[in-house]
């Protein structure tokens, strides 16, 4: 199929200056409206003429969607990040760096500095999948069709899902999403019925529930902010992103953990932990079973090994992505014990 990459199809551009007017526009135009945040995902779609919205609502002029706000005394109760806050602003914010370094680690690994200057936290968690069959405009399940081109014997599915696939095998590409899940963040959504606050992990949906989108935003809805409670402030964090090109790339898989331990040495007891993996399924996965299994256990290689094995239970590889199973095992293990020298890791032979 020839893809036209010269100019975008015409659309009506709206540049509201308040959330209320943006929401009104979104409701007015319904499914014909496209929400434009940083534009890094949007312009791919628009320039490739795969998506041809009639109306584009540009959120960049809405000041109330920008910035990091502190809750309580100097952020003692947590922070609220406006959805249009750029990733660079998130990374450079002193309180975020001091207390929620997990998000800093994740956001710093998103693409390149230029992209982080333009890309927003709301856009990063709401971006669409990178499955190239889908992004090439092929009529797959996610595009409203009746086939998955990636889940075939000949399909190029090296980057695709090993868990929770249901007809579609695309994965979520966000780096900040697993970090926000590990930090127990809440997403604030403006809907037609008012404000709705959901847990970070509930913001995302798999193809079993809705095969055409990666998140719960319906037509007319707007993600306005992300709240991070102080529950995990200054905990022990781990973030790791595996990608083909270390300069800048989407993740093949990433892992984020927030942990509180007790004890003085390297095999402290794990008191509290939240752990999340992305790139394994169509939604970032919070590994609750792993959290339950390691809580109260020593933070050592044996616990990490057990956690890694548990994390990949039920994984079903496609033709070309079996490597993701040992990768996920190792990432989960590292998210618990770090990368101390001498600890053996799972291997994969093609």
């Amino acid at each position, binding site marked *: *199929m020839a893809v036209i990459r010269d100019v975008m199809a015409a659309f009506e551009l709206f540049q509201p200056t308040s959330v209320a007017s943006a929401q009104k526009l979104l409701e007015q135009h319904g499914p014909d409206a496209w929400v434009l945040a940083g534009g890094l995902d949007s312009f791919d779609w628009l320039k490739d003429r795969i998506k041809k919205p009639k109306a584009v609502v540009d959120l960049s002029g809405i000041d109330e969607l920008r910035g990091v706000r502190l809750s309580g005394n100097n952020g003692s109760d947590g922070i609220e990040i406006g959805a249009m806050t750029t990733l660079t602003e998130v990374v450079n914010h002193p309180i975020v760096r001091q207390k929620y370094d997990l998000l800093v680690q994740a956001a710093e690994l998103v693409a390149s500095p230029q992209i982080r200057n333009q890309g927003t936290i709301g856009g990063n968690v709401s971006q669409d999948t990178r499955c190239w069959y889908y992004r090439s*405009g*092929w*009529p797959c399940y996610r*595009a*409203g*069709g*009746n*086939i*998955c*081109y990636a*889940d*075939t014997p000949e399909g190029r599915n090296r980057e695709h899902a090993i868990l929770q696939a*249901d*007809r579609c095998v695309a994965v979520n590409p966000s780096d900040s999403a697993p970090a926000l899940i590990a930090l127990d963040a809440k997403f604030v959504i403006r809907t037609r019925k008012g404000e709705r606050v959901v847990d970070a992990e509930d913001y995302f*949906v798999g193809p*079993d*529930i*809705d095969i055409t989108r990666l998140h719960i935003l319906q037509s007319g809805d707007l993600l306005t902010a992300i709240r991070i409670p102080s529950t995990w402030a200054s905990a022990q964090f781990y973030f790791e992103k595996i990608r083909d090109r270390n300069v800048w790339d989407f993740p093949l898989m990433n892992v984020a953990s927030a942990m509180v331990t007790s004890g003085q040495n390297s095999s402290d007891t794990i008191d509290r932990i939240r752990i999340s993996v992305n790139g394994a399924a169509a939604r970032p996965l919070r590994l609750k079973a792993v959290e339950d299994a390691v809580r109260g256990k020593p933070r050592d290689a044996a616990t990490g090994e057990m956690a890694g094995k548990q994390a990949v239970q039920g994984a079903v590889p496609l033709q070309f992505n079996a490597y993701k199973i040992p990768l996920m095992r190792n990432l989960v293990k590292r998210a618990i014990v770090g990368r101390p020298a001498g600890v053996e890791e799972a291997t994969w032979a093609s």
Partner: protein
Amino acid sequence: MGLLEWATSPWGKLVPIHIAWFLIWVAVIAGFLFFIVHVTYLRYFAKPKEFAGSISPAVAAQIPDRVPRHSLAARLFHWIMAASMFTLLFTAFLPKVGVQFNWVTYHWIAGTVLTASVIFHIIHASFFMDFWAIWPDRIDLRDAWRRMLRAAGKPEPPPDRFAKYPLENKLYHGAIIAAGLSAILTGVFMMSRVHTVFFPRNPYLFSDLTWGMMYVLHGLSGIGLIALIMVHVYFGLRPEKRPITKSMIFGWMSRDFYLKEHDPKRWVVETSSPSSSSPSTSKGLEGRGLTDAG
């Protein structure tokens, strides 16, 4: 607004991918319109039922109080089919109207149950029941014509009493066969596109165009079934049809209803003795193909 959704295949061909989902609402509205039209007709225009001739007291005396109509096997089939059909319709169409849930697994499992029960029914009806009882015969067509003319005020003789099934039942059964078998046959092939326990997934079994037509036919059958099931439930709940509905639960209908609506010559109920009134007197009728076709 098209009736079908189209897409461009990777090879640049325009292919149908499924029906337009607004047709779901068209089917639902059609079902409700049928209710309104039928209720209006009954309320303001319908004449009392009248049948030709009368049943002799000697024949009537041989009819038991409880006339066996549906065997246990037939009733079980009906209700299993009903449960699977409702599951199929809800799992298919609720997500399309905004109720999101994990529907695919439930859908293909219900489809498997429906397919198995329909295969059972075909064998059961073909070899163990009166196969032809559910198909329209010459008298049905003649009487349908007479009823239409009489409804229009023309002087026609009244129709005969019904055989085991009125013509409307038989036509409905035919429509269900068409819609149901279309949905089942296309559904079985479509199962090769998702992961099931039955066979390896093979999305390339047919060309894009053939697959598209299959999805379209499946969708059309599905929305047809929405309207048909609505009409079926409506008639099942109507007061004058309750004896028939009850017979699908308990297996029998009353002697009075039988004598009022059915012709003992066209639907022969075998009895062991003229004075018998127990349902047990009809034991063994089914094996002789006299009681059940539905």
